[in-house]
């Protein structure tokens, strides 16, 4: 028995700050300027003496044990048992912002109605039989993966294994 938790993984080695995920998300979910369901953050680091920029899209992490859910006084935030997606019911939200103070990642957003809204992991798309979130579909660098933890770790391992095999034996440069 493995976890059915659906999650969004960003390969930060691949993300390159094009921001297509941001406008694709806005378009998909009808989000005006203001609340940002996903947002690419830019971080400057110096690694081994080399100056670099890194980029991390920061949508909701759909935590296994969500701090926002515990902080919510009205039960507006719920976690689906089928896939672990954390959702907010705007009807129940009173706009107290306790979720924002509780969340370590600055995810809860507040639009013109001052109610909490956030990334839904495009739950409507999966429930409709589609297989990708809007941001994942938009990602040119193929940096975003969505699935269960098992599926994602399998995909990452395959990517790594293929890369290693190619480098050693295939059309990679070490093979020649």
């Amino acid at each position, binding site marked *: 028995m493995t976890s059915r938790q659906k999650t969004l993984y960003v390969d930060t*080695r691949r993300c390159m700050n094009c921001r297509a995920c941001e406008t694709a998300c806005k378009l998909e979910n009808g989000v005006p300027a203001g609340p940002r369901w996903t947002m690419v953050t830019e*971080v400057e680091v110096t690694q081994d003496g080399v100056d670099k920029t*890194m980029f*991390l899209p920061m949508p909701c992490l759909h935590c296994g044990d969500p701090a926002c859910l515990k902080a919510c006084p009205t039960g507006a935030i719920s976690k689906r048992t089928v896939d672990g997606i954390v959702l907010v019911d705007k009807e129940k939200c009173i706009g107290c912002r*306790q979720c924002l*103070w509780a969340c*370590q990642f600055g995810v809860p957003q507040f639009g013109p109605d001052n109610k909490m809204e956030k990334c839904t992991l495009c739950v409507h798309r999966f429930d409709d039989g589609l297989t990708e979130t809007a941001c994942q579909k938009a990602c040119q660098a193929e940096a975003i993966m969505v699935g269960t933890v098992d599926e994602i770790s399998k995909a990452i391992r395959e990517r*790594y294994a293929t890369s290693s095999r190619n480098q050693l034996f295939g059309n990679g440069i070490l093979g020649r």
Partner: protein
Amino acid sequence: MEKVIVVNQDLCNGCQLCQMGCHLRKNDRSGLRSSRIQVFHLSGSENLVQTCNHCEEPICKTACLMEAISKTKKGLTERNESACIGCEACIAMCPFGAAVLDTDREVAVSCDLCSGNPYCVTICPTGALQFIEPQVEGLSKRQLAAERMAMAGRNKVYQLP
């Protein structure tokens, strides 16, 4: 949304200076009970600070039979003290314990952000209280979290070691 008081519960040392300061400022005498910001000492060294969140749809407003509570255009929760009959319904209903009874005047009160310059924030010695726009707080949290995560990973497309 305008600025609101944000509490970083981890930074609170439980000194109750905010609570005493608020009481002094709003009630002109020292005390703790009628302060509009309340500090609770929990088990061990943990503390819990509670004050009004200026909810978009405040339960206190729904609870008030006298319609003494309203929302301003800027999003603040405002009280008309002259209409309050001290029934304490709002105090009972608020999930944050943000409304308190002003025992000097027998009316329910809650934080009014001191007209945009909250006294408690200015006197908090640990920085646990901040007066900040929610959007700004969200952005800075995202940035901080990203910086923590960035340092954890390598930044190379797959390569053999």
